[in-house]
């Protein structure tokens, strides 16, 4: 395990990266409030905040009074052994499971009682652990359809082929192509019109991220983005996660088992076990925390 000799790169490195490209956020046209100074320290307000978040499945406390904070422009990794409640946390944030207690605030407003699509409209997008693309739609269509909540043309415009409709269709397409071109040449050109199921596994993962990006979120939740990728692909995607924040200005929460990726990417690491946060901090701190080692390797390992 890589946790043993954690030569962690401190989160500030990332922050200075961000500071070097202050204009990028604007240039990319993603609508973000201009006032934020990104992950530049402690003064910035939390983008997402869960308060005493609990999710129960019958008698099982999947999440148990979890306080979890994500700041703007921050990359947070959520790690923990299987069944720790990581994906449940994502599901709770995106309103796909019901909360038993607690509250979720996004930009200061509660997400309680919202439908999943409203949560996405507020600016939270996610990917799925087991890639869930619209397999029979083309690559381009996958990314076009996820702009649904940012566009407005309805049946009327479509039926009468109004100028507004045509303009919006062109914009949707253009934006989709731009998002896909983020991944280099992998998802562009002739791939545009290929059904998603023809893609390789790594490309499916990429397309899923593209689809999340196209919803124009402020926060992206990535559920094991490099699972099943080979080391080269995994390293490439790791770099991309950084670029997602630096160039597109998204705050990102990553669930990941690959510690290499976690170390490279995170400003902050949150460790869950049995629905409870057992550690939090930068990678070096967390990887040396005895409780974390215990959770991963069992009590004996922690003692020795």
């Amino acid at each position, binding site marked *: 395990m890589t946790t043993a000799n954690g030569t962690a790169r401190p989160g500030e490195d990332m922050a200075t990266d961000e500071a070097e490209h202050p204009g990028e956020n604007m240039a990319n046209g993603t609508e973000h409030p201009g006032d934020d100074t990104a992950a530049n320290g402690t003064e910035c307000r939390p983008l997402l905040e869960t308060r005493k978040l609990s999710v129960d499945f019958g008698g099982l406390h999947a999440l148990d009074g979890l306080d979890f904070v994500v700041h703007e422009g921050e990359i947070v990794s959520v790690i923990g052994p299987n069944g720790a409640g990581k994906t449940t946390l994502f599901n709770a944030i*995106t309103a*796909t499971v019901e909360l038993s207690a607690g509250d979720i605030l996004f930009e200061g407003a509660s997400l309680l009682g919202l*439908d*999943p*699509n409203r949560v*996405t*409209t507020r600016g939270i*997008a*996610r990917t*799925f652990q087991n890639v*869930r*693309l*619209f*397999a*029979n*739609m083309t690559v381009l*269509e996958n990314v*076009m*359809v*996820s702009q*649904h*909540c*940012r*566009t407005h*043309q*309805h*049946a009327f*415009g*479509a*039926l009468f*082929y109004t100028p507004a*409709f045509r303009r*919006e*269709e062109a914009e*949707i397409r253009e934006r989709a192509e731009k998002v896909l071109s983020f991944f280099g040449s992998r998802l562009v*050109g*002739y791939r545009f019109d*290929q*059904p998603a*199921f*023809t893609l390789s596994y790594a490309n499916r993962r990429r397309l899923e991220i593209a*689809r999340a990006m196209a*919803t124009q979120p402020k926060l992206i939740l990535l559920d094991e983005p490099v699972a099943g990728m080979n080391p080269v692909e995994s390293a490439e995607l790791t770099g991309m996660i950084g670029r997602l924040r630096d160039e597109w200005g998204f705050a990102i929460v990553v669930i990941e088992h690959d510690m290499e990726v976690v170390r490279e990417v995170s400003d902050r690491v949150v460790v869950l076990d049995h629905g409870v946060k057992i550690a939090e901090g930068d990678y070096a701190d967390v990887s040396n925390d005895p409780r974390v080692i215990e959770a991963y390797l069992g009590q004996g390992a922690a003692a020795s």
Partner: protein
Amino acid sequence: MTATFPPETGAADGSAETLMAPSRPVLAQDWRRLVRMGAVGAVAQIFIALSNMPVRLDERAVVKPILSLGYLTLLIVPFAAGNRAGHQIKREGMPVYAAGTHEVAGGTACGALAGGGLSLLAVLLANFDLREPLVNWSPMLAELLAFGNATWFAVVVWLLIGAAVGAVGGALRVLGPRTRRAVVTMALTVAGTAVLEPLVVDLAEGMRLEALTDWLYARRGGVNWTGALVLAAVSGVVAVVGRGRVRQAREHIATLEGAKRTRTNLGLILLTAAVLVILPLFAGKLTNELLANVGLFVLLALGLNVVVGLAGILDLGYVAFFAVGSYSAAVLTAATSPRINPEMPWLVALIVVVIITGLVGLFIGAPVIRMRGDYLAIVTLGFGEIIRLIFLSDWLSGWFGGSQGITKIPGAGIFGLTSVAGTDPRRVFYLVLAFCAIAIYVSWRLERSRLGRAWMAVREDETVAEAMGINTVNVKLLAFVVGAVLGSFSGAIFSAKVGSVFPNSFLILVSIVILVVVIFGGMGSIVGVIAGSAVLIGVLGGPKQPGLLAEFSEFKLLIYGALLIWMMLARPEGLIPSVRRSRELHQQEMAQDAWLRGEVEDDDSNGGGQAAPAT
């Protein structure tokens, strides 16, 4: 999945397949398989015979003195069995034997076994009386099977006929692809011309070509000997000459891109439209009636296609909207409507009808849409019945006339120019055509819009669609309403055409028939849905409407069922599938194809790599 007809010489795909092993010896048959297939054939034969189809259809001649439609139904199974017996499973690395006497012999045996089913039946008919449970266990059937002779004759003759027809089926495997094509075309042309006799006669009358049909058809139905021969010769020549041309043209169109493609498509659409506008002028009452009926079902099927094909909501109660459309149009236009009778002009009423049906769609949809999959289908089924029972109920008979329905509905007046009623099917057809055009336009535009994409996403994976910011409830509800409104058009025209509405015109069967049309034609495909209606409603007939094969009306549902089963097995994506639907069903093959193409590094000139059809 490209079916290729490799020419015998200089095969293009120079694979192991061209190295054909010699044909197998005659007696080296897979007897178990033959017996199994023969037995299945025999059971099918008995079933067909006892369905009474042969007896009922015996009156209708196909080729005048020698073959009636009734006997034709009995020849199909041995033929199919014989042909199937000659089927070789081709696998890489396995030798492919040249077809020869082995196939003919196998076909003969298999066909004889299938025919033997009828021999057995003849014996049983002579010795037992099972009329009580089996209504069609009749002397007529015995007589038909024995050609009016003794039972032993029937036994022998059906074994012989089965063997002969099976041999023909097997022999078809021996023929080269070109000859086979010609033979099949010839047979289908003769049979088709005979079966479509009413239509051909009707059209010929309209075009003043009675002389031709008088010559072609015998006086009391069926094609003449001479007519059959000439037809066969002509179609054979056409098949040989036109071989591959159609496919070439289609492939050519498929490779076109951009403006050229658009222009070709537009041309094709205009051509079809022109034919559809001009054709009725030359057609008689029968054809126009038929076309109008097909049109009504095209409208319904297009509406259901939006719901099922695009949004993926399995609606088994679609007839509800047809009923609401019909009834509201009837109430609004008829003077005899029991409670309220505003006697609106039809077009004005139509606006109200659309609003009412839209609201009913919302009302039914709102609770239904929150369910998924099977539960949703069952609930829609319930709502379909509820609507019919509401119209039937005594409680509301003061409004809708209960089982008496509403009668004397005036036709549809169009701006005072013409009035459309059932007495003039041609006008009904034009009216239907106009609304079909609207429905086609609506489905086509919506499919290629933000809304259409959202429907697709919902169909693919509802949970993810919602997580991607699509308000699935609204989107699905809208599909429901669009479907309802399209269905109401059909209903409004239906009531004006028929002149009366009764609750029993809106049985659950109608829902099922529409669904079958959509599935048969190809879910999500506009052209497919139209083709499906033309084949099922036009040829076989709707739930109450007679089709071209009026004789078949009794067996309509049987044939529907058989067709549907065959379709699901052989071509689950439907007659003319939408691209997406066939993708869904052939994911693996297509993924492989794409992978292979990727190997070639042939990034955007994929079309160029296709092997040109060998000339």
